[in-house]
């Protein structure tokens, strides 16, 4: 199972643990995007953890938009622990999206908005991404 090496997996016991502040702090540290990989809706071991995460991700999108970093830099995905291929597909999907958006202006410090410039830099292999995934989802790729 191949997925982009730029992704860093952060394990949490359940996506219900993921807080808006965790996502913002990740951006403060310079990541270009964050996605939360939770269990399928209706199949949360803790009943509603992934549904709570979904709302928080939506809220974080609004905050990022307000800050001017673009809400698309954060996303929620749902998949089962048995779907390794889907995990890799999501990883590629998100990487492509972030590459389109370019590196985070936090990291470039100049607030460069020019897409061409951003894409050129991203293709230089510098982009990082952070994924906050459920333990099971994270485990499935190992």
């Amino acid at each position: 199972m191949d997925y982009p090496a730029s992704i860093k997996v952060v394990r949490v016991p359940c996506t219900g643990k993921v807080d808006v502040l965790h996502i913002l702090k990740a951006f403060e540290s310079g990541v270009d995007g964050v996605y939360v990989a939770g269990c399928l809706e209706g199949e949360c071991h803790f009943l509603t953890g992934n549904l709570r995460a979904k709302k928080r991700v939506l809220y974080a999108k609004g905050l990022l938009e307000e800050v001017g970093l673009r809400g698309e830099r954060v996303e929620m995905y749902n998949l089962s622990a048995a779907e390794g291929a889907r995990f890799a597909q999501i990883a590629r999907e998100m990487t492509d999206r972030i590459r389109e958006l370019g590196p985070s202006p936090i990291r470039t410090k100049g607030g460069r908005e020019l897409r061409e410039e951003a894409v050129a830099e991203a293709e230089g292999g510098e982009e990082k991404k952070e994924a906050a995934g459920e333990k099971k989802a994270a485990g499935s790729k190992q």
Partner: protein
Amino acid sequence: MIVANRKPLEEIEGMIKGYGKVILAGCNECVTVCSVGGEKEVGILASELKLSRKKDGKDIEIKEVVLERQCDQEYIEQLRSFVDEYEAIVSMACGAGVQFIAEKYRGKPVFPAVDTSFLGVTEEQGVWVERCQGCGSCVLDRTGGICPIARCSKSLLNGPCGGSTDGKCEVDKEVDCGWQLIIDRLKELGQMDRYEEVEPVKDWSTSRDGGLRRRVREDLRL
């Protein structure tokens, strides 16, 4: 509790434009309960401000503090030891807290990060609704425990008006008619005879119309 709303980031940024070191002060009371100015919200706003500045290649140093209350002097005093190291204070408390900080730190600009809105209750998690307008002369004993000042859009003391339809207010179909609620409750209590009593004109001097309100208990004063 006092319920407030977070101001848009742009507005807050406009206030602190030009300042590089600020104190962001939350409050552990009402604004924590209504999730607008407690520890977590202080963290989120600080993060937003930092991200926004960094995005433009600028920096900001934020001291995050959450005071037990911003409406009591002893807690506001807790800023004293480090306030001089910062250029301005942004308060996430209600308007009372913001003003009290301004009074106590006269040389320091103080800015509000929230819009103080109303006295309300938590109807369900994440939903806060107004219940009291602090009119200074409570009538709840006569109205089945439902406030005509806060719940009726016109604050009628002898309602309902002609705008009440199917229990809803003409102002908004989502809003219950305050007087319908009162009548329903009086019926439940078997106190409909109270509804027949005409409430006299209210003395609004106990409300905002009487100017700044003050309460003194001589026995408690030092």
